[in-house]
């Protein structure tokens, strides 16, 4: 299960709403205790997808590496990736699944008409053929 604190949720929503109608992406950092993950901060990353970004995102590995280093330097762990789905629900699409990795939690934010609607979290399997929903606690 994964719990997002208020500050991290605000940062994710602000980023997702600001890039609307394009997709956004970023990393979630925090701590892991067994299978309990707590996200204490979220940082935007540049959407590096080179085509139209209304329904695609891509994270540069260099950016992810830099984010990982930054988190480590602050004594935090990189535990997940977030991205937005403009004007559609927060499901884990085939594109999401095929280009994911099994190591992280993936939070998807549904942004409708420019405003945050709901979020879900997913855990892809090792072969990226399926993803299970991870229990998500989103601040009220």
């Amino acid at each position, binding site marked *: 299960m994964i719990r997002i604190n208020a500050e991290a949720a605000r940062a994710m929503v602000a980023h997702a709403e600001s890039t609307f109608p394009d997709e956004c992406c970023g990393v979630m950092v925090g701590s892991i205790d067994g299978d309990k993950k707590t996200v204490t901060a979220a940082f935007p990353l540049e959407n590096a997808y*080179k085509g139209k970004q209304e329904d695609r995102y891509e*994270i540069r590995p260099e950016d*992810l590496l830099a984010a990982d280093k930054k988190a480590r330097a602050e004594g935090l762990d990189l535990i997940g990736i977030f991205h937005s789905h403009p004007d559609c629900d927060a499901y884990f699409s085939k594109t999401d699944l095929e280009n994911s990795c099994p190591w992280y939690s993936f939070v998807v934010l549904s942004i409708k008409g420019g405003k945050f609607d709901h979020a879900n979290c997913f855990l892809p399997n090792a072969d990226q053929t399926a993803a299970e929903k991870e229990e998500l606690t989103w601040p009220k």
Partner: protein
Amino acid sequence: MAKVMIPTPLRQFAGKQESVELAGANVGEVLAALTSTFPDLKKQIFNDEGKLRSFVNVYLNDEDIRYLKKSDTPVASGDTLSIVPSIAGGSTVAEPLTDALSKDEILRYSRHLIMPEVGMEGQIKLKNAKVLLVGAGGLGAPLGLYLAAAGVGRIGIVDFDVVDFTNLQRQVIHGTKDVGRKKLDSAHDRMKDINPNVRIDKYEVALTSENALEIISGYDMVVDGTDNFPTRYLVNDACVILKKPNVYGSIFRFEGQATIFATEGGPCYRCLYPEPPPPGLVPSCAEGGVLGILPGIIGLVQATEAVKLILGTGQPLIGRLMLYDALAMKFRELKLRRNPECPVCGDHPTVTKLIDYQQFCGIPGHTPEPEFVEGDITPKEVKAKQDRGDAFTFIDVREPHEYQICKIPGTKLIPLGELPKRLNELDQSAEIIAHCKSGVRSGKAVDLLKQNGFKKARNMKGGILAWSDQVDPSVPKY
């Protein structure tokens, strides 16, 4: 000893350590040491065949080892190795992929289905595939016909041209009844007739730096059927940027070539031709001609390669440039390698977004209508001179085989190439009027004549094509 940074989620497999110090001369050895120390890590990083999983990138300090020497990259003491996944995704509202064929489709594709190399699995891959054809001309014609027939599910076509009589000798997707129609509409109707299951996206635009990424990003690959250098470089660069294979073909007179560019690790068009030729040096098919059958051969080599890429079967034409000579009836092959210094696909690319390709190819943005140069004369004025019985020498500087197609009465044939050594046949004091097909070659002839003291040399503007339009419509146009 090198330090391997362990991503947070993998620490549970690595004794909960953030990083591990390991020995090894190169990246492969360090990773082998890592997975033999922590066997549970192995299946997180490597697949069953022992290769790095598709999403795994390994960085030596700040460099991706793919751009160094991969697993042979040497590792020095104090180096840091990082394991970084590639992550992307998107809502892609596109219709869900199908995993079945209808009864009608099974019947239609039965000759594919009974071959194990295609089978149900391959035919479903074809049905889910999205291919963009740039151009619905010579190469686009056989491509459109056969890719539709083969069952490629979605085919985009970029073309803004209209079917012309001169197209019919080779662009077999269009018929005589289609002359004057948009090529997009004509190709659409023919392909839908062959296979109504195919979805066709029509882009009635010129592919430009502004729209190329957006159009191409919706497809799995591009098949390039363009006939000009700016678009060819544009398609190449866009494909490299978007990481989409570019199935390339080109044709000229009796010769053609084909290959696949912009695959991961493979060469791109710029590795083969870093610079475009000077404008005007390489004639187009309209200027140099093309054997009508040739685009059929080359287009179907491209279609074959596109289908193989979709199926993931056979040896793709990557890193090999196939050359075809119709007169000798010979296929040859040249090896192509990715150039590490390539400005687009090299290790340190300098072109990372689309540029102005007209300018890159030395072509001015707006080609001005050739101006009426002092001394030019119109076909009507020439006709009037003839009718009045004015004394002048009328020379045709085209080639003898063009002269056989059509000629203007009263002209003397002196092909431009022979003119310098045949100046003695002309009278320096006489008025000389030169013409060719459209006025370009005769302009050069007039310049040459003037340099050699023929002060009264004049160019007939628009050539024999303008003569046909303005004076005598019985003269055929070609």
